[in-house]
């Protein structure tokens, strides 16, 4: 997997909302386009996006790893099991419309994954939180996104501890599906009940830090935004709207 990769590219310097808007436009655009050529132009746009961010190699490698199983399944489900007519490609008799559909669907997934991996690699979580705070986003939303990521490793660790402890007490994880299902209770119950018991303690700790305050917070180091970036975000929105208008107009035709 890929995380934030520090750098000085235009995407690293851009306002986090601008980079996320580009990734979002790729996601929405991918579902608006329905022809193989259009979708592959979008993949090219996603690759350019990654290159501008200076993370093309890292993003493309991870995107490839994530997309390959989907490509393989698309090849089988649409290429090999698709509708007539067929063409021979080596030992395979491939469906012509199936391959065209697989190219659209596979390109769609590749463009989305590449776009968001680039955003993940170039948007610093700290700058995103600062941008949200400066933008007046309520504390609750920033808290949810930022703090859940820190809670996860702790809960995973606890889940692993419970698993080992229950195995020491004789819990068997193998056997029939029903036997394995019965093992779910002794593993999930202590994990969730333990976490629920800590809720009030966590509320008190947050309250003591002023988290319940509704006053607007001041960001210490808000990322600079500019008129050009706001215009770019607006243009992306219009572009996506045009892509969908075109899609529905073609569907009517």
């Amino acid at each position, binding site marked *: *997997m*890929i995380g934030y990769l520090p750098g000085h590219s235009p995407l690293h310097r851009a306002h986090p909302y601008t980079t996320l808007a580009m*990734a979002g436009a790729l*996601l929405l655009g991918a*579902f608006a386009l329905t022809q193989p050529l259009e979708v592959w132009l979008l993949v090219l746009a996603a690759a350019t996006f990654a290159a501008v961010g200076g993370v093309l190699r890292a993003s493309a490698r991870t*995107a490839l790893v*994530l997309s390959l*199983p*989907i490509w393989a*399944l*698309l090849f089988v*489900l*649409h290429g090999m*099991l698709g509708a007539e007519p067929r063409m021979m490609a080596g030992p395979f008799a491939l469906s012509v419309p199936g391959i065209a*559909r*697989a190219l659209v*669907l596979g390109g*769609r*997934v590749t463009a*989305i*994954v590449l*776009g*968001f*991996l680039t955003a*993940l690699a170039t948007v610093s979580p700290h700058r995103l939180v600062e941008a949200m705070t400066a933008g007046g986003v309520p504390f*609750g939303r920033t*808290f*949810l*996104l930022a*703090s*859940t*990521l820190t*809670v*996860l490793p702790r*809960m*995973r660790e606890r*889940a692993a501890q419970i*698993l080992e402890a229950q195995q020491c007490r004789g819990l068997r*994880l193998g056997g029939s*599906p029903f036997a*394995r*299902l019965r093992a*779910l*209770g002794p*593993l*999930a*119950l202590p*994990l*969730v*009940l333990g*976490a*629920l*018991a800590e*809720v009030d303690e*966590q*509320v008190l700790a*947050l*309250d003591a830090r002023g*988290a*319940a305050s509704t006053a607007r917070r001041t960001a210490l180091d808000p990322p600079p935004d500019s008129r050009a970036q706001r215009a770019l975000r607006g243009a992306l929105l219009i572009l996506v709207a045009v892509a969908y208008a075109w899609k529905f107009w073609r569907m009517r035709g």
Partner: protein
Amino acid sequence: MTLRDLVLVRLGVAVNLVIGQIVAALLLPVYLDSVGTILVAALIGPRAAITVGLVSQVLNAVISGNFSWLPFAVVQIIVALYAAAAARLGLFRRLSTAIPAGIGMGFLAAACSAPISYFLFGGVTAGGVTVVTTLLRAVGAPLGIAVASASFATDLLDKAIACALVSVLLRSLPRTLAARFPALAP
């Protein structure tokens, strides 16, 4: 949303994501990625549960790197609303009502996820479901039928187990802890 609700939402998201780890260790043919959503719906209500579902979907994408499944966030909203209604009717109080409630939830979730899977991804989504779809397609089922059958088979089982687990969890809450949640009052 109160501070307490926020902490519970965060817990719900973590449960959604971590239960998957346990399920993987047990090699069960289900996902159980909505246990946290159902639990929060029963403890607090629909608004918090919808937040749990949406945040889980986004964080799952951030953690796995696969953002193409974001459209399935709609399913989480359906699950949250249904779970809140089921909790209000007291269906999680007994296993005998929680499991049928889970089957109903699975029916709705599949009815929502199958079209997304078919129209947006051509039936190729998560590994297990797609393998079932491919097998059905290989024996001659039309793609739409194969996708729908695979979605219904997996979602009915998944949501029935998830609701049963939440029912057991709620009944296992110590009285002192259960008393802190007004929604659980009989």
